[in-house]
Structure formats: C-alpha cells, structure tokens
C-alpha cells in the first residue's frame, strides 16, 4: 500500500533521509520510531507530497506520488505534528470543507462527520469555532478530518499530542479498527509503548537510515538476546546513551 524505494532527502550537505526502502502492506499498522532529528517528519512530509525527495520513489496505493500527486493524496488521511485549523470555522464546518475537497457526497460527509464527532466526544463542541478549542480538541478535529473520507492510508505524526488518556485510547482503538478493514496506518512517534502496543511492524530510523525493522516480538527477541528491553534496544541501535548511564558519568 505504501512503497518507498531508495528515498533520499538532502538539505544542502546534510542528509536527512538516507536511501530508505519500505514496503507497507494493506491493513498493516506500521510504527515509525526514531530519536529527535532522525528524519521521521521529513519522511512523512515526502509521503504526503509536502517535500520532494532528492532521490527515490514513493507509491501510495499503487499511485506514483510524483506523477499523480492529487490522485495519491485522495487515498491519504494525514495528521501533521503541528496541524492547521481555520480558527473561525467550527469542527463540523472544517470536516465539511475537507470532505468537499475529497469529493465526498454531502450526505456521506454528514454521516461520517456525525459518527467521528460523536466517537471523539466532540458533539457538544462541534458547532463552536475552533479558536476556543483546547490543544486536544484541535487534535481530535484534525484526526477526524483525516479519517473522514475512509482513506486507504492514514499517516500520523505524533498521534497522541495533546490528547488525554481517554481520547488517546479512543484514537488507538479506531486506528486499530481501521486496519482490520484494510486501511494502512503509518504512525511516527517517540513513544515506544504506542509502537509496541499497536504496531504490526516497527521501523527504527536513526540519522536518516532505517537501522531496524520487524514485528514487535522480533524486536523484543533481539532485545532479550542482549539482556535488554525494547527501550534499551532502541537506545543502543540509535547510539544514544542510556539516560541512567549519562547521569552516573
């Protein structure tokens, strides 16, 4: 469903993403892990067409993103790390707008919007303007907008930003539910727990390179073999010192 081949992004001399190869299947939940500055957000920006690769190809649902960006974007629901909302529009109006751009029928937009707003417990707020929303409510609105058109691929950068534990659980559940109906979910996160709990496969990115990729049990197996947990493995692979050892030195 998502095919990335030899993807490279350079900013001047700095290589942000270095010859990345990924194949993510239909209905797969892919966790994309990496320390700050590893190139996760740059990869996501390339996947949604907001940045052009220096080298390499991206296919979304079999569509070449470079050749047919609009068709590819129709298949994607995207939640950026720092989303934009029109402050004077309500959540419902924002969903109507996004639905219109995804060429959905009016009735279909209403039905999906009702469902999602109710699901994310936004019904009592959905007709108020976004300028009065909390950080979490804005995040829920943007997530609802990304899910509205039942995309074949959902790409989320830091999904739990601003969400309380209950809303976080709602989001995790609906994402997992969508994968069962064939939607591919690509989640970039710092939080190992989310990746471990939800992901079918986890990819670890460091300095722009994919340094490990496998299912959670496979990665756990690697960790246990070294007498570590997943966090220890992550720190070792990304060549970061354990915070405990930093303190002791």
């Amino acid at each position: 469903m998502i095919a990335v081949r030899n993807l490279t992004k350079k900013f001047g001399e700095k290589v942000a993403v270095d010859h990345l190869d990924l194949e993510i299947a239909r209905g797969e939940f892919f966790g994309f892990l990496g320390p700050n500055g590893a190139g996760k957000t740059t990869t996501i920006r390339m996947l949604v067409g907001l940045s052009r690769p220096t080298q390499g190809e991206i296919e979304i649902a079999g569509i070449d993103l470079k050749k047919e960006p609009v068709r590819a974007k129709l298949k994607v629901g995207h939640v950026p790390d720092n989303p934009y909302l029109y402050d004077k529009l309500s959540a419902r109006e924002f969903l109507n707008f996004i639905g219109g751009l995804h060429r959905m029928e009016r009735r279909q937009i209403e039905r999906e919007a009702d469902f999602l707003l109710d699901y994310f417990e936004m019904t009592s707020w959905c007709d108020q303007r976004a300028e009065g929303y909390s950080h979490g409510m804005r995040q829920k609105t943007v997530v609802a907008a990304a899910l509205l058109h039942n995309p074949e691929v959902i790409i989320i950068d830091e999904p739990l930003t601003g969400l309380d534990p209950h809303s976080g659980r709602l989001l995790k559940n609906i994402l997992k539910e969508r994968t069962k109906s064939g939607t591919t979910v690509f989640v970039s996160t710092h939080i190992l727990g989310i990746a471990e709990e939800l992901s079918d496969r986890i990819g670890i990115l460091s300095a722009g390179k994919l340094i490990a990729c496998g299912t959670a049990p496979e990665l756990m197996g690697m960790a246990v073999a070294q007498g570590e947990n997943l966090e220890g493995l992550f720190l070792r692979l990304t060549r970061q010192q354990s915070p405990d050892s930093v303190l002791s030195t």
Partner: protein
Amino acid sequence: MKELALILRYKIQNSRRGFFAPRLENILRLGVNLLVGILLFAGAYWFFHYILTYLSGLHEIGSLLMDKVVSLAMLTFFMMLILSNLVISLSTLFKSKQTEFLLSLPTEHLNTFIARFVDNSTYSTWAFLFLALPLLASYGEVHEFRWWQYLTLFSLGLIPFVLIPATLGVGSSLLLFYLRRFTRPINIILPLVALVALATWLYLQANNPRSLSLSSLEDFRILNSYLSNLKAVSFSYMPHVWLSEGLKALTVRDLQKLFVHLFALATTTIFLFRMLLLLSEKIYFKGWLASEERSSSRKAERRARRRKAGFWLGFDPLWWLPPDTRALVVKDLKLFVREPSQWAQFTILLVLLVLYLVNLGQLPLTFGGQQLWETVITFANFAFCGFILATLAVRFVFPSISMEGANIWSIGSSPLSLRRLFWGKFGISFVIFLILAEILAYCSNRMLYLSGLMMALTGLGIFLMSLGLTSLATGCGAIFANFSERNPGKIASSSGGMLTAVLSLFYVALMVFIVAIPVHRYTLHLSSGLDFSPLEVFRASIMMLALNLVAIFLPLKLGLSSLEKRSDF
C-alpha cells in the same frame, strides 16, 4: 474549479466571521475599525478635494496640473502596490501554515496558488484604497461626474489597475523563490532597491522637477515649457497613464478614447494574469519547496564558525546594558533580522524615505526671502517626518510586546520582571527611532536649505515626537497586547493598532500645529515687522509641554500597569 470555489467559500466564511462575529469584543473592534476607516477616508477626501478644487480654479493650467497630480499619484500607487504585493507574498504564498495545509490537500497546487493570490492582493491593496478612492472620488466631484462615470471608473479602471501590480509583484516573488534567491536579507533587499530605483527614475523622468523652480512659477513661458516637457516624457505604455488618460476621457465624455485606455488596462490584466497562472503551474510549488527546504544547516554552520572564531573579536557593543536587558535586546534584534516579513517591510519604508529625500534633492527650492514659503515647506516636511514616524511606530513598536507571543511564559517565569521587559522594549524602540528620525530630519532640512533656527526647532520637535510616538506605541501595545497572534502585520492592523494609529496621527497634527503658528508669526515679524508677543512662544511651549506630558507619561503608565495586571500568559 469546483475545488477552488470550495476553498474560497470556506476562506470567505472564516474571514467574514472574524469581522462580523456578534460578540462584544468583535463589535467594538468593528466599530473602532469603521470609525477609523471613515475618519481616514473623510480626511483624505477633504485633503484631495481641497487641492483639486484649488488647481481647478487656476485658469488654463489648472486642469493640466490636476491631471498631472493624479497621474503622478497613480504612478506612486502603482509602484507601491508592486512592492507591497511582493513583500506580503512572503507570508501568504510561502511562509504560511495555511498554505502548507492547503498544499497537503488533494487539490491542484494551482487552486492553492489562486486562493492565496486572492488573499495576497486583498492584504496588499486595502490600504491603497483608502488613498486612491478618496482621490478619485474628489476628482469626480470636481468634474461633476455622474453615477455611470463613477461606476465605469471603479469597475473598469480601478480593478484592473490594482490587479496589474498584484500580478507583477507576485510574479516577481515566484521567480525569486524559484531561483532560490529569496532566502537571505540581501537577496530581497537588492530587488527591492532596484525596483525603487526604477520607480525613482520613472518618477524623475515623468516629473522632471529641475525644470520647475518655485520662484519662477509666475513665469508662464517657463511653465508652458515645463508642461510640454511633461507631455513629451509621458510613458504611454504604463498602466497609470492609461488610467489617467481614461479619467480625462471620462471627464470630457470622449467614449472612443475612454474605450482605448480601458481596453488597454483590461487586456493587460487578463494577459498578465494568464501568464502568472502559467508561471505558477510551472514554478510555484517548486519555489514553495525551495522556501521550505532552504539549507538552515549551512547557516547554522556559519553561525557556529563565527561563534568559535570570536565574532567581533570578543567585543560586545551592548556591554553597557544590564545582562537581562542585553539578552532581551540581542534576542529582539536577531528575531527581527531573521523574520523576512519584518525587515522586508522595514526596507520598503526606508527606501521610500530615501526616495523622498532624493526628490527633495531634485527640487531646486530657493525661498528668495519669502518667509511664508519657508515656514510652509518646513512644517510640511516636519509633518511628513511625523507621519512616517507614526507609521513606523504603529507597524514596528506597537506589536513588539505582543510578539513575545507564546514564549511570554519564558519571560513571565524568568527573573526578568515584566516592568523590565516593558522598559527594555521602550528603550530599544526609542533609541532606534530617534537615530532614524534625526537622520531623516537633518537630511531633509539640509535639502530644503533651511535656516539654522528652523533646523534647531525641527530637531527638537523630532526628538519630542520620537519620545511621544514611542511611548504611545509601547503603552498601547501593552494595553492591547495579543499573545496569541504571531503575525506582526495583523497585530498592527488590529483595533488597538488602528486606535494607536489615529492617536499618533492626531498627536503629530497637534505638534505641528502648536509649533508652526508662533514660528510663522515670528518669521513674519522679522520680515515684515508684524506684531509679535513673546507670550505666544510661552503659550505654545506650555501647550507643547502639556501635550507631550500626556502623550509620553499616560500611555506608559497605563501600558505598564495593564501588563503587570495581566494573568493570561
């Protein structure tokens, strides 16, 4: 097309609600904006009507001069609109969260471009309309226009006239971003300076002020030669000429000539807009990507190298400031330099000032002992300097406290008190302001060949105005601080900013009035022995002192107390 209509519909809905929301705060803001708008419009209408009526009363040459004034005003507007569209495109078409959001949607990039082009043209043009509409309306009034003439002028003349510079400005910005030339201050300053130099050259070619000396005004042979000279150097292929010629044709109801000029405006607009769309299809997204992906790492490396090498050999030009104030000043200066929309607008204002000074230098003004003219010109210049300072204060000083924005917590929770922050902002603004203002006053006074007394008086007046305007803008900026808005342009055009603009202009007008009257009477006393009592100077001094006490201390006191009472950081 359907998607573009959808984007525009929701954007209009979003903007409309910003203006017409039925909440007390919004109603107040709308009320203040309307009041200020009406006052500005009425003031400009009165001013233009006065000038044009005076010119129309001059036999034989009146209408020629009137048309020339309108044509020159239109040329100035035209160049200003190009610059304004170019600079504002930085924060609408490129460095904008909204643009990024629209580009991530499943719609052609062209739709995003057109939607943001509409925003860009609106933001760049609305202020121009506050000057152009009263000018054209008073022109129509003097020529007793009927409704259809106004309708033709505004719909078929003014709209294309505004769109042509919009396409040129935005087209230039597309090219600059595409060529990756729009990422460093020098790369934007150079094109701006080049554009202004071109504008100056066009202006001087069209106006040829050296051929007109104020003392020779009564000599009709010289004036006739000046006017025929003007005709010879008119640029027939410039849109401002088409609009001015169209206006003339409209006045005499020469429909054939009117059609030719309006047709030229319309076809040029359509042609340029089509070209812009083609250009945007080819390069807009590439330029946008370049603006997002410029190598910040190279800059960081340069910065690190400079730091390691001990930039300025360890010399700190701000060593005399307390460490916390120094940190604040350094932070403000760095943020200013790294925010393209800030320094781009500042550059425009500076080059306009240079343009003004170049113009003064071109006018061979000699007063020949005519004290009236010396006083008029001196105080016209004084008022102009005040107007420029008021504009700078509202645009750059007023937003300075709000610009602490989401990071106000870092100051609110630091040992730097809000009082110190407030005085720091005031101090930086005042020093920069004073230097700029005194340079401007000195240069313009030198070019006007003013006497020592006038130079000293205006120097003192400018010092007081710098202090008064900085206090007003800093104080009001603290009273109307908006920590959730990041765009300084929007902060300056908020209701608080508009109110500050009105207060500042009112203050400048009062200052000019209070100083000009006794000075004029004194110069008349020297030249023609008119009665003059030293009491008049005393009275003016008291009035000026009172005005400045109010303008300096009241806003500072209210602003500081308002900032200290705030709890919404």
